[in-house]
């Protein structure tokens, strides 16, 4: 059974805020990103390493800095405890699978350390698709 997006948002927010690796370098980790999972979209707003808000029903004009877009099947692969090859990161999946990285990629690069760590929390939290 697929987890509801609101339950997911709570679990993801708590897990991210508790994560020691992000906490070790949290200051200035401030950005807003969209995760487009096909049948579900979320906008995560980070402020100084903490999840400030997760918008679970993004509207067309809701703003974000950058976006990751892929099929629900790909997001489910991301969320496996040990993903299969080529689903084990945003670079791998953008080079070899259907992941698209869009928007202001400079902001993603400026926050790449923590964003990479946070993305891998999906392996613990799961995905709402």
């Amino acid at each position, binding site marked *: 059974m697929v987890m509801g997006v609101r339950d997911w948002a709570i679990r993801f927010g708590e897990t991210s805020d508790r994560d020691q690796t992000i906490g070790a370098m949290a200051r200035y980790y401030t950005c807003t990103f969209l995760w487009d999972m096909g049948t579900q979209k979320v906008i995560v707003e980070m402020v100084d390493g903490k999840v400030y808000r997760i918008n679970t029903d993004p509207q067309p004009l809701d703003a974000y800095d950058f976006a990751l877009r892929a099929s629900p099947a790909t997001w489910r692969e991301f969320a496996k405890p040990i993903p299969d090859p080529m689903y084990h990161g945003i670079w791998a999946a953008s080079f070899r699978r259907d992941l698209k990285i869009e928007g202001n990629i400079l902001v993603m690069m*400026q926050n790449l*350390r923590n964003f*990479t760590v946070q993305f891998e929390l999906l392996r613990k939290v799961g995905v709402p698709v």
Partner: protein
Amino acid sequence: MAKHSPVIGRYVTIDVDGYEYKVFYLRNGQGIPLVCQHTAGCHNHQWRGLLEDEEITKHYDVIAYDLARHGKSDPPLNKEWWKEEYRLTASHYMNFIVALCDALELDKPIFMGSSFGGNVALQLALHHPDRFRAVIPVEAAEHAPGFFLDWWRHPHANAAQVCASGVWDLMAPQSPDMDRWLTWHYYTQGSEVFKGDLFFYSIDHDLRGKLGNIDTRKCPVIMMTGTYDYLTPPEATENTARQIPGGIYIEMEDIGHFPMSENYPLFAVYLKEALRIIETRT
């Protein structure tokens, strides 16, 4: 009682195409020289596990150097290198390796490198087969486009973190956290040269249509690639090895693009098989 490693570090000064380099290398072992090249934007600590592997060092003289501009090997001492953009070429890279082997008076060493070190291993097999007993190109392919990117040294981003986290998922998720974070740590230290190294990796290195000229009777080629390598995926390496007459391909399960650094115990299993094959062929 102090816990000293048997690994010794030294410097040697060499001339390469008129460039004076003071090269740092780590060394341990005895027997057949095994010369090891780190990956782009990194340094010789990637070979720390191999350098202390007694099973190998009792038969092989393991030498892991820092390429010029990496780790403890400075940029050229006789050039105003800061006045031009660094772009590593295949020719200069090969000349560096041959000059270093000459300076150390190595008799027909085995050359092993990973990623851009693997690609130069292929170049050496093609252009200098008489100088090497064999080569082990790790995570290599005939051509590896797509990684010569401006992001590696963009002035508006923290280049150290971009390089280190940008290569994070070149490693397998199964590899130990400690080893993956050590590799991340090494990659924070080479961001100024990473892009210039990748000029060789993605642009200047192109052996398409030339692999058939490699003579593996003179210089056997044993290629190895991990299943989690998205940059040089297993099929790219296998396709490369297939085009080399007598070329051998070994697929490494559950490991990525930095096998010697991200999970040495697993890499060692495959490396020992490669060395065994070389022993039977030379």
